[in-house]
């Protein structure tokens, strides 16, 4: 058999990386943890499932269509969203999930020696993509669980290309109101790209929450990210998008991978747009279950933090990664928060009521049993 000369083929900087290993599929996890069910409360998935129109598309998708290439740039989706947000379709780019859009933007604007700025305790992918691509990620500590605008501005230098703001923030649920976001954008004054990640915007009911899409006309350096994975429950189809000014998006498009969004995802997303009843139903569910969860967690004597979004943070008196294993052994999967730099906290997604009850009961048992270590 041939020996591949990896010593010479692999670049030095790649040798230093460890491959990211995602979680195993549920049936494998259930086998390993010896459970016959698994409540998924780890990925902020919508427990109500996709909007009716999307569900119908998925159910009725003709197998023969799988042999046909989809629109390479999600044409119909861009047209429909452009109408909805009063934009030009060319101001929108679709990706295989919003993660791909993050990579597009970083690749479009950063070169060796450049940096990006974001928070230390937020969605990890901005930091990861920057670091893996060889760019510095400047991390500004959260202030009262929220992005610190002043410190972010203070960290800007001549090599700063992009500022990432997660609004509302995953995992803390805090958000910048419109005046604050405007002040930030005014101070940046177009010198850098400002990305506002609005993955959870449809869950926010607060009247002072800013709509990034409406600000695009005033701030040509603003880029907004949105996804169909959360509110619209199409996470399994991987579809998200970004929007910005025509000039900025034209640059980002040069780094895009075309045909990365599959046909079923495009059609299901198209059917989801404008289903306000689905949004309202989901919001009612999240509000009710979040309230139940916070009440029960308080009864267990646990500190919590909950803002906007379909998730709640819980502080534990023991290691979050240990509690993950113990909850898994009871068929409940949550997100540990050590990776968010909140050691001994967990993030619990809002699920169906049975799942919420299972989580509370299992956590109560674990706390009663003690650390076990």
């Amino acid at each position, binding site marked *: 058999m041939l020996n591949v000369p990896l010593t010479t083929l692999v670049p030095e900087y790649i040798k230093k990386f460890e491959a990211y290993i995602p979680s195993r599929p549920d049936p494998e996890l259930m086998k390993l943890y010896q459970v016959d069910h698994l409540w998924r409360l780890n990925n902020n998935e919508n427990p109500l499932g996709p909007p009716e129109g999307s569900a119908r598309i998925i159910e009725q998708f003709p197998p023969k269509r799988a042999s046909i290439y989809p629109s390479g740039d999600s044409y119909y989706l861009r047209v429909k969203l452009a109408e909805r947000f009063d934009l030009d379709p060319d101001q929108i780019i679709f990706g295989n999930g919003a993660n791909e859009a993050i990579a597009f933007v970083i690749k479009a604007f950063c070169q060796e020696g450049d940096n990006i700025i974001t928070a230390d305790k937020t969605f990890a992918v901005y930091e990861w993509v920057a670091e893996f691509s060889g760019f510095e990620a400047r991390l500004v500590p959260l202030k009262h669980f929220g992005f610190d605008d002043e410190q972010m501005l203070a960290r800007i230098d001549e090599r700063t290309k992009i500022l990432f703001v997660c609004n509302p923030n995953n995992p803390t649920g805090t958000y910048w109101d419109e005046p604050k976001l405007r002040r930030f954008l005014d101070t940046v004054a177009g010198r850098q790209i400002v990305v506002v990640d609005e993955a959870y915007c449809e869950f926010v009911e607060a009247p002072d929450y800013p709509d990034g899409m409406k600000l695009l006309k005033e701030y040509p350096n603003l880029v907004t990210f949105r996804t169909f994975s959360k509110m619209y429950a199409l996470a399994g189809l991987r579809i998200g998008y970004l929007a910005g000014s025509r000039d900025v998006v034209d640059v980002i498009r040069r780094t895009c991978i075309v045909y990365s969004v599959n046909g079923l995802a495009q059609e299901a997303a198209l059917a989801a747009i404008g289903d306000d009843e689905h949004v309202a139903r989901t919001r009612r569910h999240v509000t009710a279950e979040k309230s139940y969860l916070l009440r029960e967690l308080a009864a267990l004597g646990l500190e919590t933090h909950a803002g906007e979004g379909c998730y709640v943070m819980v502080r534990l008196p023991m290691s979050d990664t240990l509690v993950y294993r113990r909850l898994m052994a009871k068929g409940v999967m949550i997100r540990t928060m050590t990776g968010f*730099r909140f050691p001994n906290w967990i993030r619990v997604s809002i699920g169906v009521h049975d799942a919420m009850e299972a989580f509370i009961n299992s956590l109560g048992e674990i706390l009663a049993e003690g650390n*076990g270590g």
Partner: protein
Amino acid sequence: MQDRKTDITLSVETDIKFLPLVLSFSESSSRIFGLQDADALKLTLASEEVFAYLCRMTKDPGKVTLTMVNGFYYALLTVAFEGIDFDPRAFNLTANVSPDEEGLEEMGLLIAARSVDRMSIFHNAMEGTGFALIKEKTYPAAEPWRSEEVPRAEGVTFGSPDAEEIKVFVRSIAGGYNSFVYPQDFRYPGKVVDMVESGEYGVLTARDPKGGIAGGMVWRSSGTSMIECYGPYVFVEEGRAGLAERLVAELISAVARSEAVCLMNRYATDDLPPGYFETLGTIDFALAGEKRPWKFLFRQLREDPGCRVYSHAGMEDFLKSQYKKHFLARQIVPVAYEGERQNPHSVFGAAFQHNQDLVVLLPLWDGADARENLARHIEALRAEGIANILLRIDLGHGWQARLYPVIEAGGFTPSIVIPYRGKADCVLFTLKG
């Protein structure tokens, strides 16, 4: 500041006529990277022995690449080669070289191993095959120190200290804590500064508003999957518990998005707050005639995806009980020796920690003589008066799990499972009696 990128490389053929060039390369480059005369000469001697050995082992000249790497507190010489066979048994601590011609060929490797601080074999797709020889610099030991003004816990800020602050921090640890709760490197502040500079150590300190060091923690990568940490070291009198907890949380946050999946606290102090680490088990440890418990404190940095481990039937019950106790989801794959061909000679590595009176044995190479070889190691270590002899196997390697009957026959008992310590979980064995 020295630049780590300035590695120096020499490529030659395995022909003894190149020996003077190899010696000149090793001596000059190790001096450039800061080794003093005696240390540079020892590394040069090691390179001579290894290169001469390779020349003797090769019928047709093959390519050898020597690379001197600046490790800041050490010089690392790698000798990588292609297409050369060698018998690795000479790497055994107890290799008993016979005076016949074949034995003499391997004598050189023993001399090389004893001339340097660390020597290992590498053999993988990324690095190729070869030897890695490490000679550390010599540093002056420092006196323990205690600040006259007691720092305060209020208003502290956390960050990475500069070189002078690292020295003060390290001296303060030696001045305030028993030597049992910090690594021996801490006796040499300059060495710690260089280890931080090399990226091997990370240091986090809490500074009070007057600039006094109120406390800190240290960590060190232990392979790609594991980080070891030490502390928390706290120098304030009031508010110790709160500061200790903040230090631990800051440390975990600092390493949370690294490539490591686990964190172990190798030298925990009494200030360690509850709830951040799991106790995997405790080993009774003998030091200076006293028995001390050595708690294995561990936490995962990521969600456990579960994994597959190899196990010999003899230790399956032990593994199952440990996995149940610690809620670790594992698929146990049974392995056993079934008469297949084996290499004649095995190799056990021996990692010494003199200040702990400790040796950890590690199987490096499978071989038919493993049982006798292990027995020789135990005999030699007991003769040296080593009080604590442990053995560690990696359950990610079937051949290591298969060694269980050999290990048991050597008098070892499985004591602790360390998740993801190697390719998969590792088992630490203690020596009975």
